[in-house]
């Protein structure tokens, strides 16, 4: 079974803090994705990566950056967290079209 592991289920941070969300997959997938999920808006793509050290902006990259130093790990970084970044963050990986999701990190920025 594909396993996508996100480091935290729940996270509470203060405005202005630097936040790291980690995602690890164990299936040697080339592609990894970060989404945020908000009620009524579905899943919106923040960043994605097709290979190590490679990244592409998604639909809502503002306020975020990513890092992919190893194939299995894709990190989402909030350089200076703001309250409007309070959300559910979902990581996914794929080798073909089908995406496999982690359990999600619910981030609250106070």
């Amino acid at each position, binding site marked *: 079974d594909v396993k996508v592991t996100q480091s935290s289920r729940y996270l509470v941070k203060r405005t202005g803090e630097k936040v790291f969300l980690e995602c690890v997959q164990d299936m040697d997938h080339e592609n990894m994705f970060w989404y945020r999920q908000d009620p009524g*808006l579905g899943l919106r793509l923040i960043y994605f990566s097709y290979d190590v050290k490679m990244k592409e902006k998604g639909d809502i990259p503002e306020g975020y950056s990513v890092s992919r130093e190893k194939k299995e790990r894709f990190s989402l970084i909030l350089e200076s967290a703001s309250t409007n970044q309070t959300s559910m963050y979902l990581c996914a990986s794929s080798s073909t079209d089908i995406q496999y999701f982690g359990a999600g990190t619910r981030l609250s920025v106070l």
Partner: protein
Amino acid sequence: GQQVMQIPQYQHVQEGEDFTTYCNSSTTLSNIQWYKQRPGGHPVFLIQLVKSGEVKKQKRLTFQFGEAKKNSSLHITATQTTDVGTYFCAGEPGYGKLTFGQGTILTVHP
């Protein structure tokens, strides 16, 4: 950019009633995928449709892809309480990135 609209946003049914959710893309899609997210869970892949006019069935679930490859539907016959959750369509225009619809939240009353 590409947009995928999904309706309705919410659907309440009595157990045993049928349910349908509809998905429309602003552009022609290479394929469309459907995912289900149980309450408190993460999206899980259900099916992928690739061919124009394609119809696929999974037990009580019937998936259709429109002739123009711009719309799709998911129909559940005789809903059960285990069907509750959010159903997402996700369109893939051809370069590996998925655009998700807003999702339809299905509630089934016993």
